């Protein structure tokens, strides 16, 4: 295993940049889909994997790059600058960290290598039709039956469902007590009998989300991650990991790069009013880096991100959306043509507008993040949830 952290930041950047320029398939640049299908990005996924560059956040012992905070940022930057699309990364950024933290040895050796090989592709089963923002109200049940659990219910707004092979889901294993108690995380093979999927088309015109119907699905008890009935805590850990991921500057940086390319091509920087608006937003992004580095360092030092990390998700996703709105405004008529790529070869304003919309809804809406911060960080009275 290569010790990436032994490199200077500058050398690390040079190395990643050279790798991407050499090995990234050019036809995938600025891909019109928020998340291209597995068959589209498979080759690139496997290239990253073969070079040990797939999991920047995993410890080297599990086949990750074990990057420091500053190098992780460089890693994301270099991918964004090149317009690299999102790969099937749910196993890398969500399940992986939680298994490394809470999984049994058997689970780790079963699943971690298969995430890296692309054999298993993961989706997340949290939201339900009546439990979107109010996760504690979820209704999917898991009832023990010998050494199995029988799961019934419905999950929705599931990303990556189109080509996922596995799902980690939250189900109710006990009905009494507080809503938050009695939830358990299960690993589900999506080929199990009783699982049905339906894809959901979004504003962008792509079937990028999905619903899963679970009808008497049998799952081995060995597939429980973390303690039985103790899923809420692990799920909240998972959400904090997710928030630091959503709070990375990736999304607004991507938007800034697209807007920047367009603005250069159109000479918009000659307009002082545009320059002012652009500078304001690029500083919102640039200053976010400092906060992001802080939370990454906290993580590296062995602490959890803490509920404060919600501020990062809020800032990141709202900056992302403001960038997309400025782009749409300055693109005028060109902004609403539905063609995928504009003349500058970057993603169109319209696609970016669509793509940025769900970021303030998924993995805890902005409203839920604000409730959380009010209650758990600012300790305001009687705050929800």
């Amino acid at each position: 295993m290569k010790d990436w952290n032994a490199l200077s930041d500058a050398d690390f950047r040079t190395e990643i940049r050279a790798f991407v320029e050499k090995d990234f398939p050019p036809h995938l640049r600025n891909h019109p889909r928020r998340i291209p299908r597995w068959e589209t990005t498979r080759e690139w996924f496997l290239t990253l994997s073969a070079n040990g560059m797939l999991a920047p956040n995993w410890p080297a012992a599990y086949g990750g790059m074990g990057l420091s905070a500053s190098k992780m940022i460089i890693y994301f930057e270099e991918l964004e600058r090149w317009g690299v699309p999102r790969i099937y990364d749910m196993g890398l950024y969500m399940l992986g960290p939680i298994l490394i933290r809470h999984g049994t040895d058997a689970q780790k050796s079963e699943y971690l290598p298969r995430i890296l090989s692309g054999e298993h592709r993961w989706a997340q089963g949290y939201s339900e039709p009546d439990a979107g923002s109010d996760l504690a109200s979820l209704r999917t049940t898991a009832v023990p039956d010998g050494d199995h659990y029988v799961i019934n219910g419905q999950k929705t707004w599931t990303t990556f469902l189109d080509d996922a092979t596995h799902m980690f889901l939250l189900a109710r294993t006990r009905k009494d007590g507080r809503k938050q108690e009695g939830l358990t995380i299960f690993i589900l093979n999506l080929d199990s009998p009783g699982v049905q999927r339906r894809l959901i088309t979004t504003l962008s015109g792509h079937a990028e989300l999905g619903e899963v119907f679970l009808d008497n699905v049998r799952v081995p008890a060995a597939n429980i991650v973390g303690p039985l009935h103790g899923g809420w805590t692990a799920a909240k850990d998972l959400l904090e990991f997710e928030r630091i991921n959503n709070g990375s500057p990736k999304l607004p940086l991507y938007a800034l790069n697209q807007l920047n390319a367009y603005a250069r091509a159109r000479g918009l920087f000659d307009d002082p009013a545009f320059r002012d608006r652009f500078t304001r937003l690029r500083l919102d992004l640039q200053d976010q880096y400092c906060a992001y580095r802080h939370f990454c360092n906290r993580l590296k030092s062995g602490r959890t991100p803490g509920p404060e990390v919600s501020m990062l998700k809020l800032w990141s996703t709202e900056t992302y959306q403001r960038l997309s709105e400025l782009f749409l405004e300055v693109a005028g008529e060109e902004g609403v043509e539905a063609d995928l790529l504009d003349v500058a070869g970057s993603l169109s304003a319209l696609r970016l507008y669509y793509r940025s919309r769900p970021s303030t809804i998924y993995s805890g809406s902005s409203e839920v993040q604000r409730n959380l911060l009010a209650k758990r960080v600012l300790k305001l009275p009687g705050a929800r949830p």
Partner: protein
Amino acid sequence: MFSLTEASALAREPEVAAALDAVDRYLAGTSGPARFRAARNSPDAVPDREAYAGLAEVGVTSAIVPEEMGGSGLAPGAAALIAERLGRALAREPFIENVVLPVGLGLALSSRSLMDAITKGEILCVAWQEGPFARPGVTPVATRLERDGRGLRLSGRKRFVMGARASSGMLVLAEIEGSHAIASVPPATAGVARQDKSLADGTCWSDIDFDVWLKERDVIARGDEVVPALSSAIDLANIAIAGMLYGLQSRILELTLEYLGTRVQFDQPIGSFQALQHRAVDLYTHAQIARFLIGEAVDSAVRGAPAHVLEAYASRTKARASDSGQRIAKEGIQMHGGIGYSDEYDLGLYVKRILVLSAWLGNADWHRRHLAAIDPLGDGGMT
């Protein structure tokens, strides 16, 4: 609470009220969102022509044509009131592009022949723009009409021509001998090459290359009157677009308020959460500011109103209705959560229509800058 009717005296005049009732009855017999969804990205002109025929049947195509020219003679501002209804119903009827713009041009030119064509059922569109953020008289016209031995040659490229696909005649702005002219060109003429561009909402506009030979009688107007006439038609169209944008956003606001009242999370309807209440109030407030402004613009858009008054109202209404529309669209999606981002739910259709109409004929930014140029300190409107 949300209609323009209370905000406009014109809307309460009996003839106008009757015309709006007729529009409502017509719309009640169609299913806006479903039809709109079905026709999205259709490469075919038939749905556009059928929808146009629907407008014609109910008298909408000649509503603002003067009585002496065979129309109903409603004040031009009525176009924005009709557009509001069409917007609320998410009707795909090509009203602004194939009615308001050509009729507006006919009004400004006092062109009997143009009006005759429209009242007889011809579908016209106006091709004037050659690049983004344009305005006749401000941006130069590259399309040329040149005379030689063989006749009149029209050459150049127009962009963003809304309603071209279904039209039976195109009114084309061209430069001729240092002045300007409007030429009437049948779409099927040799030397007309149309490239349709799909738009966010599933409608289309077209880029059109012209290299055609015309007859003298195809030039329906020329001289110094052309640019002001076209500008005034575009101003009227923008006031009508503002009306349509208002109809669309008021419907999103209704859908959102309904959703806030029924969707339960944390054991309560989400509309009982104060943070959402206050944001809903802000959307309502923005919509009301747009509503009373558009109402005033409607009442000011009478025949013979001074051009500079309509020009200012056009830019003010377009800027305001685009801004409040996009704000309501964005917050409408957010307050709906996942369902607001799905294509199955109708909300997105309204949102996308707002995006397209906001960008067409100058977006909010452009119109604000235009206002700063024509009336730098706002004195005109205020003191």
